[in-house]
């Protein structure tokens, strides 16, 4: 890439200054969908969960599926970006920020679902351990409480991880802007001057955060899997669930990242920044995760089949040949049989269209996987007298669609406020330096181009 720093500034800051009618039209459509979902939620709170498709025995379904799914998507960003930063992979530079943003937004959406699914959502704060005159504390043995802490830790961590390397870019916008923009970005850049001391501190903070966020990310999805694994329910009570969920989360996360990057590339005209090499590299990661996913599913199914416990087998057969088998085999197609060959062939993988074609089925397949973990197990739990089934109601469907719209809307707004590619990191990664970049004195003081 042979761009001058000034061209980079111009290309990457353009979306912040200019919006087309398409932006407003898309935002309006997405906002309408989000409003519909909010209406559905209020409706559900008013009448009770009876208006959903939930029943006895299927007490958890779409909402918890969405919860686990969005937590999984959230592993796209911070974890990938942290690993790439720790490994100092140079190609990461244009990718990290849009990845980290996915984490923050999908985690916020995921965090809503445990509230949406509560019977009495207005009392959710009873999960917070606060001293009260009644002396009642939450039950620390409950995996739901672990969830509460894990998600909050991850959310705080990933917001920090997103904001830290944004300050130099905010300062860049502040320095180039006038009027209200100068004021606003002046405030949110938190007094960034680009002094050597500030660069040094930023570099230190990013190194610490990159290492610290990895165990947090792994633990979050492990704890989400324990929501299931800790209950003596056939198909849930499995020691493999922690790593299985983490692998699945990274898998769906990378797929979501590839789709988001392809969209940004088209919509914001970033063809010269998000190049086929980025999709190719992420495609390799995706291939590894696809194989790993297949290995986990195979290992889990095979041990269940050999164990042959009656309680487990009714769930097992319902997904292999029974009522849920169409969904199961769709999932296998979406997660393995379609993407693995595409990603394994180099001449396909380095074409962006093909990588996206491999990623979209994975997102669908991973949603199905979460559904297939939850609903068949509850439908065929132990006593045949109580077997049941589940069909979603319009409320659950609208809320599900609404959260996808919310993700798009938040991302759209984000791309108007933040430069979607970290400008200073991109400049640092540029091969030649005959022309000093705009933040040159400070960058030079920060030492070799490996900050972050």
């Amino acid at each position, binding site marked *: 890439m042979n761009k001058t720093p000034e061209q980079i500034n111009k290309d990457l800051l353009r979306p912040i200054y200019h919006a087309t009618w398409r932006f407003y039209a898309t935002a309006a459509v997405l906002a309408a969908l989000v409003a519909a979902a909010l209406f559905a939620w209020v409706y559900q709170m008013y*009448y*009770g*969960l*009876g208006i959903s498709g*939930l*029943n*006895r*025995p*299927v*007490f*958890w379904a779409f909402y918890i599926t969405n919860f686990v799914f969005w937590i999984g998507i959230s592993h796209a960003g911070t974890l990938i970006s942290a690993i790439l930063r720790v490994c100092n992979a140079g190609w990461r530079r244009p990718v990290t920020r849009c990845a980290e943003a996915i984490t923050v937004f999908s985690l916020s959406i995921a965090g809503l679902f*445990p509230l949406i*699914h*509560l*019977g*009495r*959502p207005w*009392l*959710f704060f*009873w*999960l917070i351990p606060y001293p009260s005159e009644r002396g*009642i*504390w*939450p*039950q620390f*043995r*409950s*995996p*739901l*409480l672990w969830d*509460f802490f894990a998600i909050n830790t991850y959310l705080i961590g990933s917001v920090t991880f997103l904001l830290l390397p944004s300050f130099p870019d905010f300062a860049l916008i502040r320095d180039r802007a006038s009027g209200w923009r100068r004021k606003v970005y002046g405030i949110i850049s938190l007094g960034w001057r680009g002094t050597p001391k500030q660069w040094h501190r930023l570099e230190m903070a990013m190194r610490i955060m990159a290492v610290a966020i990895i165990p947090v990310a792994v633990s979050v999805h492990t704890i989400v899997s324990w*929501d299931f694994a*800790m*209950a*003596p*329910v056939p198909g849930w009570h499995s020691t493999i669930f922690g790593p299985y969920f983490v692998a699945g989360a990274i898998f769906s996360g990378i797929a979501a990242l590839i789709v988001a990057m392809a969209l940004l590339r088209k919509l914001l005209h970033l063809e010269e920044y998000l190049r086929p090499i980025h999709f190719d590299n992420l495609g390799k990661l995706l291939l590894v995760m696809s194989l790993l996913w297949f290995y986990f599913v195979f290992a889990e199914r095979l041990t269940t089949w050999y164990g042959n416990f009656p309680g487990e087998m009714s769930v097992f057969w319902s997904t292999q040949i029974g009522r849920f088998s169409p969904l199961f085999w769709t999932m296998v197609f979406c997660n393995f049989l379609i993407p693995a060959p595409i990603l394994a062939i180099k001449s396909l993988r380095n074409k962006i269209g093909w990588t996206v074609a491999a990623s979209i089925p994975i997102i669908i397949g991973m949603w199905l996987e979460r559904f297939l973990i939850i609903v068949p197990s*509850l439908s065929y*739990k*132990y*006593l*045949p*007298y*109580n077997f*049941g089934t589940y069909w979603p109601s319009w409320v659950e469907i609208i809320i599900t669609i609404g959260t996808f719209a919310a993700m798009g809307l938040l991302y759209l707004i984000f791309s108007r406020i933040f430069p979607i590619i970290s400008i200073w990191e991109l400049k640092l990664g540029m091969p030649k330096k005959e022309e000093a970049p705009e933040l040159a004195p400070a960058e030079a003081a920060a030492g070799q181009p490996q900050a972050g």
Partner: protein
Amino acid sequence: MGHRWGMVIDEDRCTGCEACVAACHAENNIATVGDDEASRGRALHWIRVERYYEGDFPDIRVKYRPVLCQQCSDAPCEPVCPTYASYQNDEGLNAQVYNRCIGTRYCANACPYMVRFFNFYNPVWDKPLDLQFNPDVSLRSVGIMEKCTFCIQRIKAAEIKAKAEKRPLKDGEFNPACVQSCPAGALIFGDLNDPDSRVSRLSKSSRGTTFLEELGTHPKVVYLKRDTWHDEQNA
């Protein structure tokens, strides 16, 4: 020594009449959700009679098994509740604090016996059942779990009465509604800590089994399985 309430259910005696179900509804103010909701699997029956059919027509035999909360000593429903709504009280009952429940429904998923019920809507009753509420039992609102309590209101009333009269509780002095109403005497209730109580003696029967024993929940309800004399008689 405190009490440890338990029950013995004799499958030889159960006729499947469901008087226990009706009595439980009346005693505990359980909502009758209506046909539509019941067909969606939202019916609330703290005790139910499960029917299992054995053999092929016409040599068919039906087996009745009344199922209520098994009052597990190691209950899967208890540790999963994030707000302590579900906990074990000091007499070994799996208690449910309605006011503390926020409706995660995690307990219902964890329970292998499917004896926990969720209020999908605010409760309604077929008329004139709404005119005969039991004043000793609180009504449950939308969004919370409810379950069999072994008629804790009767337990407490009997304990308070015995204490006031400065005497120990007698075996069989009081019974939960289901036990009281069982015409065949298939349900026997009592204190498992009292070695001479009927329930203690019967629970040691060679016919005694606990439900889904392999899960290690240690229920305090013991089922006396059908004896083989049935088969001999039918042969």
